[in-house]
């Protein structure tokens, strides 16, 4: 068997891991309900009583939903598998840790996209919003979901078998991000320090791309947004895989 065939087989097995994750960890009512309700309540909290146009708000809501759902379960899969003693069995199967993690990322990627359809359909059907550039909209959803799901894997690298510790860390990182990514306040209206911090949030580029998809206008160029998301994706993915491999023995 040559390397290409081996990689093909491992990719198929990553898909098997993704199906397992979706079945065991994602398709549970609390996960789904939280994925939909949390961004909805944030939306209510920030939009009610303020004169904000739906075409400005919805890209932010969709981006936020994508961010929270794609990175929601990824952080707890590894600690949970370690705690339930299923990890060693998984690691002993003929799938490398990189492809196991790829499977975990794939599950978050799919879940993020499916749940983000809810606010998207709400925008299209409820508020009669039109998508100005559909291919760009799709591209931004795909690349962002992959990026956020990879962030979830990076967040699960501390070798703990206590999912609640990892969730605390995860929320500590994720919650502040939504306030510095131009979701509720446009980036151009942020103070200077806020603008600098916004550059370090991948969600900034997602929301900007989605606004470009809806309105045709954006703060940054499309190329910059896409490149920044790819850069974040590469960092999350490579760093996550490296740290997971390093911490594996401590986790068992």
């Amino acid at each position, binding site marked *: 068997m040559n390397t290409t065939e081996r990689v093909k087989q491992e990719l198929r097995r990553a898909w098997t891991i993704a199906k397992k994750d979706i079945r065991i960890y994602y398709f549970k009512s609390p996960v789904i309900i939280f994925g939909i309700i949390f961004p909805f309540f944030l939306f209510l909290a920030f939009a009610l009583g303020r004169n904000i146009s739906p075409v400005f708000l919805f890209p932010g809501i969709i981006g936020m939903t994508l961010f929270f759902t794609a990175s929601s379960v990824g952080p707890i899969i590894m600690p949970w598998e370690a705690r339930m003693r299923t990890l060693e069995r998984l690691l002993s199967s003929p799938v490398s840790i990189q492809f196991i993690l790829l499977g975990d990322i794939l599950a978050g990627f799919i879940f993020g996209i499916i749940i983000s359809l809810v606010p998207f359909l709400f925008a299209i059907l409820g508020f009669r919003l039109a998508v100005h550039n559909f291919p760009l909209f799709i591209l931004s959803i795909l690349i962002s979901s992959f990026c956020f799901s990879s962030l979830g894997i990076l967040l699960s690298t501390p070798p703990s078998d206590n999912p609640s510790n990892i969730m605390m860390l995860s929320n500590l990182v994720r919650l502040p991000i939504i306030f510095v990514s131009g979701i509720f306040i446009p980036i151009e209206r942020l103070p200077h320090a806020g603008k600098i911090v916004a550059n370090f949030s991948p969600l900034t580029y997602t929301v900007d791309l989605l606004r470009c998809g809806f309105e045709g206008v954006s703060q940054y160029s499309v190329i910059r947004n896409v490149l920044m998301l790819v850069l974040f994706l590469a960092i999350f993915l490579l760093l996550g895989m490296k740290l997971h491999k390093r911490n594996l*023995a401590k986790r068992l």
Partner: protein
Amino acid sequence: MAFAIEVKDLVKYYGELLAVDHISFQVEEGEIFGFLGPNGAGKTTTQRILTGIIEGNDGDAWVMGHNIRKDAFYAKSLMGIVPEMANPYIDISAWNNLMLMGELYGVPKERRRKQADKLLEMLGLYERKNTKVKTFSKGMKQRLLLCISLISQPQILFLDEPTAGLDVQSARLIRNLITELNKEGVTVFLTTHNIEEANQLCTRIAIIDHGKIATIDSPENLRQAFQSMQSVEISFAAPFDDIGLLRKLAGVNEVKRVGEKLRLYTEEPAKVIYELTNFSRSNNIKFTTLNTLGPSLEDVFVKITEEHKGWNYEHH
């Protein structure tokens, strides 16, 4: 003879702790190879390296001819593994666990369905195949883990304490299955500290202690090598407490009380029997049973690990 497992100078550190200390051994194809040692001796670490779960710091290992570091994918494809204290996924059924693992091993759908049916039937889980594993007892979970390890029809089976904490029936079922699989040509690497189990099942045994291999041999040869641990077991008709008198008999190295019996360790059982009959006659003490015993594997194990401990103390 082809080697199913070949280990050369394997080393593993956990921080400062040397868990596996330059060990080398081979397991021949078709063997049931027992890997014994006290807790913390390095058994599980060695098995984890051999099954590609963790990497050693130095040395190398090959499983069915595949280097476990460079060709882990191929080596793992040929293995069936029951790790120590592992669990199946409890939120899905036994059947779905088997399908999941079959898929991860690249077993075609039709074949994994047939194999799953056969294994569940064989290990007495067929009736519960669609039940979520969270309702299973420990014995049932362990039997399911064995089913999972066999779904890909492996050439080599790694079992880490497969019967630990199980009821007699489950343990016996698993031991019988191991024997049957071995008859069909499956090599078995059995990590255990159940000495009697190793004695019953294994062709050869390695004893590991403080990360080093203390000895490798067949259970019978190990016993033969420890002739000084032969014994004569005696029980007297009336209570007898003066062990000191028995220690003075010619040929007796040591006397131990084992329940109601007394065990006299010796290199010359015949001489001790002669001495005991004279002792009985001259002191007018009748005995009810008199048996000669070879050294048990447990005796050998304790002796080796104690000697090894002494060796370690002397050398550190």
